[in-house]
Each structure stands twice: as structure tokens, then as C-alpha cells.
């Protein structure tokens, strides 16, 4: 692993006890994030993308059980850490931005207190330095009159502003890794692009790794250096943004791309591509390809056993029995049928 690697995860699994049995929310997931790199994790609801982020943050609900071969942040082994050691890293080396800016800030404390307490808690300095840092970052996230804003309460701010506060808060201690879980889903479209721009430019400026979790393929395409597509708790396709969007190798990825109307590409009024069937419930013993009930290319090997990741090139892999050539032929033909 190179010295620039911020986060390394190998074979991460998360099991959650539910009344019906064990829910395999995440299975054998591996990923790594480099300094200054953006990894987008994309998938639909229930695919395990948010659980993955909580697992990395060690913020999983009590009922969830985490196992992994390796979980390392800046070469520090997270698996062997006690909760109190881990807490020292959270907010310091690793920060997180949540989906709903309206509920993610504590309503009874001033914005300034909430920003400064991260800084003070992690021993970066006293109240005065914390205040200076907060004002500096508020200017960075494009907030005019930062001093006044810091003395306000969350309910006095709009959603867009609150999300910027969250971004500023994660940057208080200059983290190596930022995890953003659907950071713009709750925002208006015009605020979305601005917020994403801000997040990206600050991430590059602070040279932090960024894991961006989203269901929006548009956001992924525009933000990602690398993409990981998740389905049913598994990574089904990994690669650079160009590779994944221009030449998807997994039928699910192809299906997703076909599903969305794209101005200038899909014919208005035409039928959109779609994926039939339902998402599997991940309870009990899982066997075979999880996508087989929705896939048009099912053959015997899909029905049982473990389908491993096939690596095409460095950093490019997919989880399907189709060979790269097969997938290229079959999927591109299908893609052509849906203009």
C-alpha cells in the first residue's frame, strides 16, 4: 500500500440481528481511498452504502456486528482500537457529513459552540484559536459575516447554509478523510451544484480523501475519481468514473444507467430502460449472484456458490460470471436498443 493511502478496508462485513434472523447488510467489501481522491459509492436504498460509512466511522447501531480483515486509517489499525481511542480519531482525522442538514446540528447550541468544541475536544487549541479557525473556515465555505453566523442557532439558518456549516465543522481539525453521506439530497437543485463544488474544492485544498455516498448517478459522474457500485451489500463494479459510465461491465450498472432519462441522450417520450424484479432481502444464508432474479444473462453458475470479483485491470473489477468480452457484447447491444 502506498504511503498516500488514507483508508484501507479489506473484506468488511456487517451483520445485523433482526427478528427474522441475520441481515447481511454488507458482505466482503474492500476499498481504499488515496489522499485527495474522491471515491463515490453509489447504489439504491438498502444496498449497504450508508452502513459501510457508519462501519468505517465505528458508529454502527448496537445490534450490528462488524468483521473485517483489515480496517486502517493512515496506517493505523482501527480494528484493534478501543472505542475511546477511536473517538480521538473521529472529528480529527476522519470527519462525516450527513444527509439532512436540518436535523444534524444540535438545536439548542450556537453554531459557533458546535464548531469550536471539535477543535477543543481534540486538543488543537483553546477557545480563542478555535474561534479563529471557525471564522477562517466559514469564509472558506463562502459565508459572509462569519462572526454573526457563529453566534446564531441552527434554526436561524437555511438548509444550504447548515450544510456548509457541516462542511466547515468536518474541516475544523484538518481531517485526512471525509465521508459525505448523500450531502446534497435534501437540498434544492441550485444549491446542490454549489455545495458539491464547495466540497470538492475544499477537499482538494485540504488534500483529504473523500468518500461520497449517493444514489444520484449524475453526482457520481461529475464528482468521482473512482466509483464503486454497490448492490445487495456487495461491491458489484469498481473503476474510474469514465470506465464505469462509458463501459459498464456489470448488468446492474448498465441497468441503472439505462433507467435515468438524460437530456440530449434519451429521446423525450421514449420508453426508459428498467430493471425488473425486486431487491433481495439480505436475511439468512445467501448464495449465488444476488442480482440473478433481475438479470437477463443468467446461467447456471449464477445460481449458487460465491461469485468473486473479476479484476480487469488495476483498480477495475466487477462481480459477474460474464467474461469482459461477453459483458461488452451483451450489454452494449442492449444499451443500443435503448437510445
Amino acid at each position, binding site marked *: 500500500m502506498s504511503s498516500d493511502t488514507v483508508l484501507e478496508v479489506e473484506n468488511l462485513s456487517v451483520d445485523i440481528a433482526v427478528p427474522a434472523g441475520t441481515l447481511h447488510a454488507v458482505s466482503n467489501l474492500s476499498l481504499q481511498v488515496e489522499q485527495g481522491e474522491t471515491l463515490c459509492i453509489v447504489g439504491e436504498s438498502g444496498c449497504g452504502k450508508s452502513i459501510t460509512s457508519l462501519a468505517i466511522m465505528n458508529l454502527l447501531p448496537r445490534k450490528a456486528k462488524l468483521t473485517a480483515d483489515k480496517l486502517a486509517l493512515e496506517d493505523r489499525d482501527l480494528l484493534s482500537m478501543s472505542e475511546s481511542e477511536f473517538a480521538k480519531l473521529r472529528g480529527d482525522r476522519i470527519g462525516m457529513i450527513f444527509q439532512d442538514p436540518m436535523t444534524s446540528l444540535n438545536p439548542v447550541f450556537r453554531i459557533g459552540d458546535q464548531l469550536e468544541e471539535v477543535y477543543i475536544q481534540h486538543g488543537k487549541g483553546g477557545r480563542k484559536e478555535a474561534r479563529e479557525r471557525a471564522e477562517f473556515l466559514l469564509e472558506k465555505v463562502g459565508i459572509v459575516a462569519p462572526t454573526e453566523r457563529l453566534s446564531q442557532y441552527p434554526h436561524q439558518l437555511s438548509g444550504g447554509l447548515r450544510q456548509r456549516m457541516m462542511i466547515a465543522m468536518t474541516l475544523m481539525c484538518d481531517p485526512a478523510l471525509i465521508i459525505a453521506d448523500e450531502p446534497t439530497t435534501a437540498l434544492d437543485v441550485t444549491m446542490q451544484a454549489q455545495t458539491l463544488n464547495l466540497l470538492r474544492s475544499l477537499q482538494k485544498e485540504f488534500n483529504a480523501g473523500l468518500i461520497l455516498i449517493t444514489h444520484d448517478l449524475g453526482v457520481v459522474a461529475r464528482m468521482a475519481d473512482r466509483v464503486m457500485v454497490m448492490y445487495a451489500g456487495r461491491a458489484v463494479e469498481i473503476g474510474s468514473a469514465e470506465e464505469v459510465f462509458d463501459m459498464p461491465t456489470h448488468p446492474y450498472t448498465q441497468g441503472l444507467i439505462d433507467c435515468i432519462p438524460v437530456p440530449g441522450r434519451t429521446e423525450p417520450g421514449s420508453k426508459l430502460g*428498467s430493471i*425488473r424484479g*425486486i*431487491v433481495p*432481502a439480505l436475511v439468512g444464508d445467501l448464495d449465488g449472484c444476488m442480482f440473478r*432474479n433481475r438479470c437477463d444473462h443468467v446461467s447456471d453458475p449464477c445460481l449458487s456458490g460465491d461469485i468473486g470479483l473479476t479484476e480487469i485491470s488495476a483498480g477495475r473489477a466487477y462481480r459477474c460470471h460474464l467474461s469482459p468480452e461477453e459483458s461488452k457484447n451483451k450489454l452494449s447491444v442492449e444499451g443500443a436498443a435503448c437510445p
Partner: protein
Amino acid sequence: MPDTIHPNGLEDQVDEFEIAVPSPPELMRRRAKSHRGFIIGGSVVLFFLAVAVFAPVLAPYGPYDQELTKRLIPPVWDAAKGTWDHPFGTDALGRDYLTRLMYGAQISLMIGFFAAAVSAIVGSTIGMIGGYFGGRVDNFIMYLINVKLALPGLLVALSLVSVFGGSILALILILSFLFWDRYAVVTRSVTQQIRVNDYITAAQALGTSRTRIIIGEVLPNVMNQIIVIASLEMAVAIIVEAALSFLGLGVQPPTPSWGLLLSEGRSYMFFMPYLINFPGLAIFFLVISINMMGDGIRDITAPEGRN
């Protein structure tokens, strides 16, 4: 009517990954079966109910039968004086204590149930109306609730009982007056949450009358809460009835209300503690089992996702 449009994928066959999600009634049945508190509480309540209903058959004596020669006989486990003729002993007038206790269950359950039911109907109606209509109607209902909360309930009840007397009907009505506000507060806030749901808007967009929306769409979603409160309020009503009778302002002697038994036994409690312990424990066990049942109902009917 047009031909069927083939909707891309949703065939009538069951997908191999489809798992059976239980319907709300089925889910409740399953939870009820495995809820220990509910089962235990429910069984004890049923036991008390059976005793109350079949008291005339089960009880060894009549509730008012006195035998002055057999006063203050201790329970059967008192080795010296106990007798199987009166397993729970007798009171100061020589009445069989077990019999009195069994008939007491009738009074407690009847007053508790009807007080909870009447206040449920009144309170929930008020609450749903306030929650659904909002605005001035709601302001008025909030004002009513505030007035009710401000009044010292027990004191007002005591005064009313002293004015209107301690007939069972009067007690039921006075206790209902004491308890309607909890239903109103809860149903009001639940209705406010329900009102903003799109299925209410959809019903409105059909031109459904407001009464129909409240009864047909809102009530089924509030019903669980009403039942939960009702069980808890029934327990409180039983205690309050006993308290009123204990103070001599509730059911009048010689009616065998548990509160009255306690009050009568109080003079002898230093020497014959069973005279207060039997009725006291009877109230305690009935109330605790109703509470367990109520807590059980709350868990059983809770929406999914909460433990």
C-alpha cells in the same frame, strides 16, 4: 376500459427473493403471542374478570351475610384460629372476607372499565376534532384541556361525590370527567401528525366529508393509542375509586369496594394486618396486571422499527 398495459416486470409470480412481510394484524398476533408481559398481565386480568363475573357462583357466602359470633377470624394459615370455613378470615362484622373481596372485584372492574370507556369516547372525539380541524377549533379545545389540567382533579372529584353521592353511575361519570384529558392530548397530537399525510389529502381531493375522514381514515390510526391509554386509565380509575371509597366519599357501606374494605380494616391493622393487606394487594395485583397488559398492547401495536 383499455387493454392491460404490460408494466415492465411485475409479473404475478412470486420473485425468488421475495420474503413474506406480515400484515399489520398478523404482525400484532405474532407479537402478542410472544410478549410475556402481555400474556401474564392479560391472564391475571382475565382471572379477576372471571372472579368478578362468577362471584355469585364461586363465593362461599353472600357479600352481606354477617355472623357476629365469628368476628375477626384470621385467615386459614393462622395455626391457632384459622379455619377453612373462612379461608381469608372475616371482618369486624363477621362477614366472610374472601366473599367480600370477590364481590369487590365486580365494583373495581365495572367502575374502572366504564370510566375508562366513557372518558375514551369523550376525550378522543375532542382530541381528534382539535387535531384535525386546527385553527380556532383547536385553540378552543386546547383551552378546554388547559382548564381541565389546571383544576385539582381529585379535589373536584371528592367535592362532586360529596354533592352527588357515591352511586356507581355517579362515580363512573365523575371519574370520566377526571380522565378525558389524557385521551384528548394524545389523540390530538397523533391526529396532527396524521393530518399531514398524503392519504388524508387524497381523501379530501375526493370530496370525502370531514366526519368520514376522521372516522374512516384518522380513527383506525389512533385506535391503538386510545386502547393503550384506556388500559392505563382504567388502572388509575380503579385506584382512584378505591381512594375515594377509602376516604369514605366513594361507594357507600356495606357495598364491598376494596377501598372501603381497606378503610374499614384500617382500625384493626395493627393487630389484623390481613384486613388491609388483602384488599391492598388485590388492588395492586389487578392494577399491575392491567398496566402490564397496557404496556404489552403498546409494544404489540407499535409501528415497526421500534424495539
